[in-house]
């Protein structure tokens, strides 16, 4: 169990979310739906609705929220958070839900790639030799070393869990 999971084992799902970074404002929501109509994704994909995700979380539907596809469909545009009349940090909340989901083993495979690159090289996208050569051609200064060691120490100190790839791609 991660150190987060240990702490929250006996909490209600709602309390578990509000105890996480980003999830603190969950319970202010009064389901007005401003976030839903602000959301560019919700209009295009009916499986994603931020108001619904919050409602399910408040009602304690942990399994449905964490194992579902919905929470991965947010495009992090922050329009909902900007317009929310109760200052619910909706986009941050979705990060918190993803954090919990990931620790429980749910996540799209692409995140595993990001994490691997980050841990190995301190960047989420690898810099290929081709690109390094192009930089030289353009007259750009060579890239400075990346603080990979410090980065990894910080990841470790904050319980960063590398997501594993799953069979079924999401």
């Amino acid at each position, binding site marked *: 169990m991660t150190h987060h999971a240990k702490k929250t084992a006996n909490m209600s799902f709602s309390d578990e979310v509000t105890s996480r970074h980003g999830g603190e404002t969950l319970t202010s929501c009064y389901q007005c739906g401003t976030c839903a109509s602000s959301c560019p994704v919700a209009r295009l994909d009916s499986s994603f609705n931020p108001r619904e995700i919050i409602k399910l979380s408040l009602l304690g539907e942990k399994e449905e929220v964490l194992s579902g596809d919905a929470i991965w469909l947010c495009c992090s545009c922050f329009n909902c958070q900007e317009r929310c009349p109760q200052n619910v940090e909706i986009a941050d909340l*979705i990060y918190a839900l993803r954090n919990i989901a990931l620790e429980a083993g749910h996540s799209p495979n692409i995140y595993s790639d990001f994490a691997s690159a980050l841990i190995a090289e301190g960047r989420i996208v690898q810099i290929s030799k081709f690109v390094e050569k192009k930089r030289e051609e353009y007259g750009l200064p060579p890239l*400075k070393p990346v603080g990979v060691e410090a980065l990894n120490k910080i990841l470790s*100190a904050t319980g960063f869990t590398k997501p594993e790839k799953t069979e079924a791609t999401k």
Partner: protein
Amino acid sequence: MKSYAIFLGCTIPARQPNYELSARKTLAKLGVKLVDLDNFTCCCPPPIQSINLESSQAVAAYNICLAEEAGLDIVALCNGCFESLAMANAALKKDKKLKAHINEILAEVGKEFKGTIEVKHFLQVLMDDIGLEKIKEKVVKPLSSLKVAPFYGCHSLRPSKLLQLDDPERPTIFENLLEALGAESVEYRDKLKCCGGLLKGISDDTALSLARDKLVKTTKAGADCISTLCPFCFVALDIGQLQVKSKFSEVYDMPILHYSELIALALGVDPEELALRSHKIKADTVLEKIA
């Protein structure tokens, strides 16, 4: 000459050296000195925040510490880097408890966040340090009546409480900067809506629909090109245009240019020096219009 620590992030060095190129040339012409610091890492944008928000905030704070130690403010070129670093900077400056908590973590790598520097977006450096008047003065090839649809992207403006770049509902900084170059800034519907960039690889359909929406609306408004502030938005609309053509059988021929590329052109930089060939949608029509 004001100096900044330039924060390149990951996407720009990996996929958009043209953005970096035009930005460096522009800032040099305008008298801003850029310093490349050692040990910057990924800023930990939304994909990493999705894995662990706390880790991301701590890594962002780590990067800010490097700049604090060098006594330099940071200029970020990518919206994602700007948001990640500026949000962390603002949050830690405001919330003492959070700062103490993050500093406990940073102590493990021998760093301490003090809150002594600012994190600025490329646009802010142009606006605050140089100013519209000086930019206008330095323009040698005004982008005569080039109709540009400005696209802020999401993370330059929101969440506005922490980023404080401009009015999140009615921003004008980008439009003013375009007009200072002699270009005509074009209003179009839903201009502040997301490009869908972060959904690539998760829900390509939605991502493409959002990119297409931008292309449709800017075309309807009569724009000659779209100008971006963020490498993700650039890719979503540039390469994205080919994918839109493929999926929807629609051709837009809408060149996408970073603001730094436009300003470089206006300041007289030779187009050949700007790696415009790396754009998937060629910028030839734009170059013709401003010749």
